[in-house]
């Protein structure tokens, strides 16, 4: 099994965030596992194809994502990132300015790819 260092996982998560904000579809696709299970802060879930398609067609835009607190760890060989981020986004023409907590799980390959993700709105 290819083992990932914390630095590799941190870099993969940072690339994911950059790719979302810049709508870099190639980088985004490369960083997502084909079988990604992604759950949004409203409980809805989608796979890689639908998620990337929403970025590609502009129905979902991430204007800015500012990490506030990111913690990366390897738990039983599983790369896990938990974080809090401030997000400015648009979905179907509606603007959102939220703070979200997320759990991101990366594969144990090199480079790591996002394989599971869920987010929550942070109550402030």
């Amino acid at each position, binding site marked *: *099994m290819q083992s990932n260092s914390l630095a590799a996982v941190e870099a993969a998560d940072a690339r994911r965030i950059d790719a979302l904000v810049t709508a870099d579809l190639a980088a985004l696709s490369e960083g997502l*596992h084909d*079988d*990604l*299970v992604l*759950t949004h*802060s*409203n*409980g809805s*879930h989608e796979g890689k194809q639908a998620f990337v398609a929403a970025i590609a067609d502009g129905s979902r835009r991430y204007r800015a994502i500012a990490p506030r607190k990111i913690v990366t*760890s390897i*738990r*039983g*060989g*599983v790369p*896990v990132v*938990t974080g*809090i981020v401030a997000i400015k986004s648009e979905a179907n023409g509606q603007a959102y300015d939220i*703070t*979200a*907590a*997320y*759990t991101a*799980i990366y*594969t*144990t*390959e090199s480079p790591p790819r996002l*394989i*599971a*993700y*869920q*987010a*929550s*709105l*942070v*109550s402030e």
Partner: protein
Amino acid sequence: MCRNDRTFLEELTISDIIDQIEAEVLEAIVRADVALLERLLHPAFTYIHSNGHLETRDDLVNVIGTGARVWSKAVAERVSRVDHRDLAATLSRVRVGLVYEGRDYQTQLVLTAVYAKKDGGRVVAWHGWHA
């Protein structure tokens, strides 16, 4: 099943392990079996709730062990699962009976759970959303 049997363990797939552990964790919470819960949850386990609050393994074990949080039932329905080498992640809808001030409330949790096969299989993270 003997979870410490190395030969047997090596023959298990991650799918076998997570099926077993998913049920055991929910049962451990309902029965307030903190010893089992501690065994099934990785020491660095985190549980992020709908409001963004993060619980550690110790936090979760404490609220279950002291009775500050009581679940009368927990029934999981699998939505999806992804397997990759020695990790797996599931997305489930969990129907939870939550006891608060003596009354039983029904709620549904949309739960991402992540499992590692290492050390006999453990839950490394939960992230939930309450319907």
